[in-house]
């Protein structure tokens, strides 16, 4: 006696969250059954293995049918075939597009191309996430990217509108899309200590202040691409370190203001010129795409690591950066105050976020 056909169709589509998670995680039906057994469901419910197998198959089939709709979430809302309460629809979408921290760190900033897709095997082996799940996550990134890349308006809003994500998830995806578009390097060893959250935080600041959308809300791609003109202008900041008088003045102003307030004052004083050169040079280099990609590497090398080696507490870093950017306003003869603020406000936020162990 073998079961040829075995289905269950409810007027309201039954969604088992646990099985959905297993499916999303890319487990095969038999693995999923084994995991469910291990979780003790047979004891809890008195069911048999056959029942569990049948139930799991059924849910997998349903998810498989829903997957096509999940690729365009508004379709899930308007379709007539599966009657699903709105709260469940939201859950299906949110979970389908959720991603693993370990996975996203591997892919963040990479081009979402076939080439990268080929590397998923390695990523799967490295992270322990099933290949199937890697593919789903990768395809999700790519799908969202494709849909919103040519659009006007806020990146996060566009994503939310076309994929019906929660605020949080939409902002995360905005960061992923932004990183993929600008190809920021995130995989270097010295960046490994950073979490996706750190990058997402920086992405949000950069989108708000450094993109075209920050100055003009009516352009295509406004949130995706950095404002080229702005990057070009950043070269003007070089004067802060190139002009020795200006650099000395800047240093003395900062030191005066911070004396007695900083635990690492002497280290700061000793390193001021290096740090300042580092930060200004990062800005000046952003005209080249290659250097844009290395932005985070540079920030870590030029600022985070030196401070960390001197054991600056975070509070001191904050005080320093605040003072460092504010005092520029007192530098007579420096004419790019607005440009400086646009650069430094964002950078300061990013650095503070990046500064941890």
């Amino acid at each position: 006696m073998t079961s040829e056909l075995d289905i269950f169709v409810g007027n309201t589509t039954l969604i088992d969250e646990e099985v959905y998670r297993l499916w999303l995680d890319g487990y095969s039906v038999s693995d999923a059954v084994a995991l469910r057994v291990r979780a003790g469901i047979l004891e809890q419910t008195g069911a048999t293995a056959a029942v569990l197998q049948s139930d799991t198959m059924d849910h997998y089939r349903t998810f498989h049918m829903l997957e096509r709709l999940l690729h365009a979430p508004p379709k899930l809302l308007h379709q007539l075939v599966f009657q699903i309460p709105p709260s469940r629809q939201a859950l299906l979408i949110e979970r389908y597009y959720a991603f693993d921290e370990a996975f996203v760190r591997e892919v963040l900033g990479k081009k979402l191309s076939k080439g990268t897709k080929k590397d998923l095997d390695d990523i799967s082996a490295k992270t322990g996430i099933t290949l199937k799940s890697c593919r789903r996550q990768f395809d999700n990134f790519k799908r969202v990217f494709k849909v919103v890349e040519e659009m006007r308006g806020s990146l996060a809003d566009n994503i939310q509108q076309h994929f019906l994500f929660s605020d949080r998830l939409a902002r995360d995806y905005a960061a992923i899309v932004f990183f993929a578009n600008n190809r920021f390097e995130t995989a270097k060893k010295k960046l490994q200590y950073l979490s996706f959250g750190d990058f997402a935080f920086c992405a949000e600041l950069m989108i708000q202040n450094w993109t075209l959308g920050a100055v003009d809300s009516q352009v295509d791609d406004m949130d995706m691409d950095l404002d080229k003109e702005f990057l070009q202008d950043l070269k003007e900041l070089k004067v802060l370190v190139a002009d020795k008088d200006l650099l000395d003045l800047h240093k003395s102003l900062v030191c005066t203001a911070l004396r007695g307030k900083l635990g690492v004052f002497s280290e700061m004083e000793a390193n001021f010129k290096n740090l300042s050169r580092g930060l200004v040079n990062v800005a000046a280099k952003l005209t080249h795409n290659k250097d844009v990609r290395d932005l985070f590497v540079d920030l870590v090398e030029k600022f985070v690591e030196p401070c960390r080696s001197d054991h600056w507490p975070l509070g001191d870093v904050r005080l320093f950066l605040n003072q460092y950017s504010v005092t520029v306003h007192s530098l007579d003869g420096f004419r790019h105050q607005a440009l400086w603020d646009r650069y430094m406000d964002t950078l300061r936020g990013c650095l503070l976020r990046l500064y941890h162990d």
Partner: protein
Amino acid sequence: MPGKLKVKIVAGRHLPVMDRASDLTDAFVEVKFGNTTFKTDVYLKSLNPQWNSEWFKFEVDDEDLQDEPLQITVLDHDTYSANDAIGKVYIDIDPLLYSEAATVISGWFPIYDTIHGIRGEINVVVKVDLFNDLNRFRQSSCGVKFFCTTSIPKCYRAVIIHGFVEELVVNEDPEYQWIDRIRTPRASNEARQRLISLMSGELQRKIGLKVLEMRGNAVVGYLQCFDLEGESGLVVRAIGTACTLDKLSSPAAFLPACNSPSKEMKESPLAHPPSHGCRSTHNSPIHTATGSRLTQNFSVSVPTLIYTGMGSGSAGKEGGPFKALLRQQTQSALEQREFPFFTLTAFPPGFLVHVGGVVSARSVKLLDRIHNPDEPETRDAWWAEIRQEIKSHAKALGCHAVVGYSESTSICEEVCILSASGTAAVLNPRFLQDGTVEGCLEQRIEENLPAGCGFCHIPYDELNMPFPAHLTYCYNCRKQKVPDVLFTTIDLPTDATVVGKGCLIQARLCRLKKKAQAEANATAISNLLPFMEYEVHTQLMNKLKLKGMNALFGLRIQITVGENMLMGLASATAVYLAALPMPGGIQIAGKTPSDGSYEQHISHMQKKISDTIAKNKELYEINPPEISEEIIGSPIPEPKQRSRLLRSQSESSDEVTELDLSHGKKDAFVLEIDDTDAMEDVHSLLTDVPPPSGFYSCNTEIMPGINNWTSEIQMFTSVRVIRLSSLNLTNQALNKNFNDLCENLLKSLYFKLRSMIPCCLCHVNFTVSLPEDELIQVTVTAVAITFDKNQALQTTKTHIEKSLQRASTDNEELLQFPLELCSDSLPSHPFPPAKATSVDYSSFADRCSSWIELIKLKAQTIRRGSIKTTVTVEKASPMGEGNFRNRSAPPCANSTVGVVKMTPLSFIPGAKITKYLGIINMFFIRETTSLREEGGVSGFLHAFIAEVFAMVRAHVAALGGNAVVSYIMKQCVFMENPNKNQAQCLINVSGDAVIFVRESELEVISTQQPTANCQQSCAGGEVTT
């Protein structure tokens, strides 16, 4: 020219990509009604076209309106080659024809293609303008309302219940016509869908005409079925109960009633016949016109229909309403008139007087191609024969009517088993057309009403019983005699006093048979049938005893025929009726007492059985009030008193003489273990696992003993097919496989629905089919309803109090709605309102003995207790070809997808049905030539069933409804050919589209509204399904 049909095509969405190059579609729409076709403009390059068409107007007469479906085809325009069809929508416009139902059909309909399934949606608006005055309109059969619900629909009251209506039409199956060899599968499927749509439209119209002749205005308990006879044709048949219904004034705003309840009860029922006479007369022009029109269109003659008044000799009888079904006086008159059958399973209070027992008849026929379409001998003659049989069985039980009546077929190749069954009953003629007998009835009613046990009292003469039975005085009123066990096909009457809770009981059975041809095959089958029926009843009886209960409701026995086997599946809801005696236990007796270890084994089994009974009593809370010993008798009789149960049909007749039949009236059954077969059976008795805690199940509308439903419902369909290993197939192995299949299916359901606990699976409906040699297919449709645990745990005592309360609320209702015949007008009513029927089953051994005698006599008719079966073999005769028309359900939906509930029950817990929008009756075919790519057979069927649900919901939503009640999947025929990567499935579903309002909302609307209504129903909660 009574009407103008207006159709507007608004927009499409989610269309499939038809042009690979552009990834877009150039869609346009053809709108066809009858022979007229309109087209919209082509909307270029879009998957979401906005046609916003003009109003397409069709001027048609009312027959067309009634018969034809509106056919909407979405196509992709192609300049150079033929336009590609994207898919179709059939819309049944019937609901627009009653003044009380929907006024417009408007909404999003799935665009359906038989090969690709649903391909996007289309927004359509449909209206009907009627030119003629309403009066004339109503005289056509258009005005007749149809309900699938097998009780008087809520928000109506029955003025008169006229009785049985039936009709059938036949035609050639397009799948078997020569042209099918050259056309595409899509064309073939569409031809079939359309034909069935036309046939069911015609059928419905003809039934409507009969109803008008009977002076009724509605058909309740309408059940339409298809018989796919293959080569020999396609039969569409329907049965129903004609009624005159009155709409209760708008249920949403109840007016406080001014009449006294008693006045209502007595006066209103009687008053109406005259007042309804006006909409009576049969409109003969229409009738004949129809015949000729159909002939033209389809070039086939109208089949002869026994009771239509055309053609057959019984014409004169058809107008005959069921007059009072009084005992003797009218008996002979009734006999000659109509079939006093009612498809209802729940009844207005006072309608059901006594219940005699289950009556059933089966007949094996050979299907034969029609050689001469004009030959009078047709399918309806077969049915007439069976109905006659049923009628005489009922008469033998002292009953003049059959309630809970249904008919079914099982076809395999050229063999067809026709089955009919129902519950013999004595009815109160007050509700039938004749008011004159009222006097005698009143009395009877008085006598029944107070006790709630009247329906259990035997209708037959004690001294002249139709079968041996064990009678006792009613445990409730102590005045009348009751049988020891009752079997019925109806729902538990509302006023019945039940102890504890009920449960689902199934008897399952397989019998191998040799493959054979034609007559030999039919003979083999008919020889097997009596044994099957006997075994099924044995199992039912044993399982009933094992549960410690004494009555079955909703009994449905299905016999399915396959190439090399017969399957029997009986489902029923067991309960403990307080009026009946406490059931005895089950005794096991070994046949060869010599062996000590054997004895030990036997006693071990005995203990297990006794433990099970005790456990079940606890589980189902069966604690009947103690009654003095002398009345009850000891539960387990002395060994000598035991009656023995003859269990296997292979027992020789010698053994018959050994049977101690004279002790047949004792209350314990003895299972005699004399061979491994018997052992198996005893084991299988014990293998039925009760549902996990928190779950209950029944196949009736509601679960006896649970009356606080909350509002979460989940309707579902589950299908399983197993392949038997062809090696060493024995009856035993088969039985085990089948048993496991059903048990595992139930276990899966409990597991799947565990999040709803505490809940009850209601209206559990199993259907078995044998699509191929080694395949068994089981289809289950049911609804899970949650209930409030605290309430459910109430003791028997409080339960009784509740029912008293309920009774008083009923009175209140009566105040509000004069003469509320539909006792369960409240959707939430825990119990269906019918006055019940019950059947008695004679005691087991007695049945046994009578059975044996009959076998000896080689009688063709078998009586077993109140169940009678007849098996006849006949060569089939030609079927006429018919014409038909069909209808698919009505359409429309809103742009935001609203929730549409579906339920096989006639009510929605925690809600009140405010309007019936019309019947939904849809037939779909789905075929694939890429089975693997669609996920194999499971993926294919899963998707198809989901699509069918979606189409039903869309049509209901388009009618403005938010639920389908009395939903039923009447057919699910699945065929596969994995080698060719192909599969095909046919599904037929029906139900009543309704609008319901949550009770909580109702309260808000009119605060002064009777609290009684809300109280009785289950507490309304949020609805999730």
